[in-house]
Structures are given as structure tokens and as C-alpha cells.
């Protein structure tokens, strides 16, 4: 298959999935359970992205203190909990990672 056709089809399918429910919603009665379930998409998806970034290094689970991204991530979680501020959270996490990388 020609690379341009591959890109075109890949793009079309991607767009179709992004468009699908935004387009359909409101045209059909949406069950109450589904409305409730949608409320949990953000915490579920975001955690599913975050956890491997922190706890998996070089393709294996790494819960040791030497896993700097885990340590810096935990610092960020604490700072986020108390500050509720995006910028401060990111700065705290980055600074923690730099300090761990350069001084340990």
C-alpha cells in the first residue's frame, strides 16, 4: 500500500473515532449509567497514563528509591494535593528530578 494512502486512511480512522461520540451524543437518549461513567474518564485515563511514567523504567516495574521519576512524581503529587496549583506542581516535580539526577 502506498504510504500516502496509509496516512490518509490512518488519519481518517483517527478523526472518525475522535468525531464519533461528539457527533452522536444528543442524537440518541444517553443512559444515566453512561453519563455517570463518563465522569470517571478523566481520573481513570490520566492515572493510566501517569502510573507507567512513574513506576516503569526500562520496561520493568521499578519501585526502588533509586527510581528518580517515581520519587519526583510523588513529590509532585504531594505538592499538587496541598497547592492545587498546576505551575507550582510542575516546577516542584522538575526541580525534584533535577536535584535527584545531579546530586545522587
Amino acid at each position, binding site marked *: *500500500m*502506498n*504510504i*500516502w*494512502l*496509509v*496516512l*490518509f486512511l*490512518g*488519519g481518517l*480512522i*483517527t*478523526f472518525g*473515532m*475522535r*468525531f*464519533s*461520540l*461528539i*457527533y*452522536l*451524543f*444528543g442524537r440518541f437518549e444517553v443512559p444515566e449509567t*453512561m*453519563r*455517570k*461513567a*463518563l465522569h*470517571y*474518564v*478523566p*481520573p*481513570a*485515563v*490520566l*492515572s*493510566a*497514563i*501517569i*502510573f*507507567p*511514567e*512513574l*513506576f516503569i523504567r526500562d*520496561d520493568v*516495574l521499578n519501585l526502588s528509591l533509586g527510581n528518580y*521519576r517515581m520519587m*519526583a*512524581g510523588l513529590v*509532585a*503529587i504531594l505538592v*499538587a494535593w496541598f497547592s*492545587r496549583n*498546576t*505551575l507550582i*506542581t*510542575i516546577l516542584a*516535580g*522538575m526541580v525534584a*528530578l533535577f536535584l535527584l539526577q545531579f546530586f545522587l
Partner: protein
Amino acid sequence: MTEQTKNFLDGVRAEIPLLIGVFPFGMIYGALALNAGLSIAAAQLMSSIVFAGSAQFITTQLVRESAPGLIIVLTIAVVNLRHMLYSASLAPYLTSLSTRWKALLSYLLTDEAYAPTVIHYEKEGVTPYSHWFLLGAGLALWCTWQVSTALGIFLGTAIPEEWSLDFALPLTFIAMVVPVLKDRPAIAAALSAGIVALAAYSLPYKLGLILAALVGIASGTLLEGRKSQKGIL
């Protein structure tokens, strides 16, 4: 300043921390795509035709391995399945828009545009111009992705890996998710999804992410259901 501009700029502003993490990814993608044998035009235009980071990385890998086109298309479809979740999640906030707006915003709906937008909508609700927020976040990401792809193609990966700029991405997601964890169902959704994501990490094509998200959503919903039943009794 009009309400449109204000919402648009709020979206751009919410997107900025994510852009710090996205920029090096775009450069790495551009450099890898060229290296895998894609033409400059194909490498660059994939960033606007497909416009989905992880799918583009995997496509690059498959092109390098000379995988059949049909396999590549199917892989893109599976890797991007999670966008249906995002589509469902944002749909209730966008029902009043014209189909043209819905199509434009859908095209811009990536992980990085979805996250700040859904958090913003849950907090602020729908206003007549709130869709401009998603437009701002989405366009800011789109422009960054195109520029960083181009820089990667022409300069290679110029940002040293030791800077760990990519870590800004999970950190931004942390800053977004922690304030959402207000009750037990939300915490259960987050923890169960995270743990399943670790357990299912070795599944290919981001299927682990989808499985984890579904388990998390189910846990949150079930727990909330139990709680409200108790309330009735």
C-alpha cells in the same frame, strides 16, 4: 476582550505546560521518521494528517520494519481507540455546536488537548463560548506539534535527553488529576486504573491503557452506584 478571545486564550494558557513536554517528543518523532525512510513530506504531513503522537511513533517503527500498509492502518486504529473515550467524555459539553465546529474540535482532540479541557469543563461547566477553550488548547498543541516535527526533521533531536523535558507531561497530568480526586469513587477510579496500567503494561498497541481506563471507569461507577443505593435505603 471578547468572550471568544478570553476562552481561547485560557485554553492556550492551560496547554502551555504540556507543550514543554510535547516539544521534545515532536522533534524525536521528526528525526526518527526521517531515519526510518519516510520522505520529508510524509514525515511532516503525518503530523497534520494523523496528528496523534503515539500512533505516529508506532507507524514510523512499522515503516522501518517494512510492515504491510493494512497492518499499519489497523495498528493506528487500535492505538487511537482511546480517543473514542475522550470523544464520549467531552460530548456532553459540545452538544449545542454545529457539525462544522464538532468536526474541527474532533480533529484537534488529542490526549494533551483533552486533559486540560475536560478538567476545565468539569469545573466551569458549559458557557456559550466554552468551545473556544478547546480550540485554543487544540490549536496551541497543533502548532507546536507541526513546528517541533519540522525542527526534528531538519535538526535532529537537538534537546539533550538529560534535561528530561518529557517529564513535564506526566507532571502536568498529575497537576490536573489530583484536584479531581475529591471522593472515594474518583480515588478508586484513579488507583485501579493506575494499577491495571502497570499490570497490563506489556500489552501492545496501548491496549493496556484502554483496559486500565475501562477498569477505572467501572470501579468509580460501581462505587458511586453503591453509595447512592445506600442513600435511598
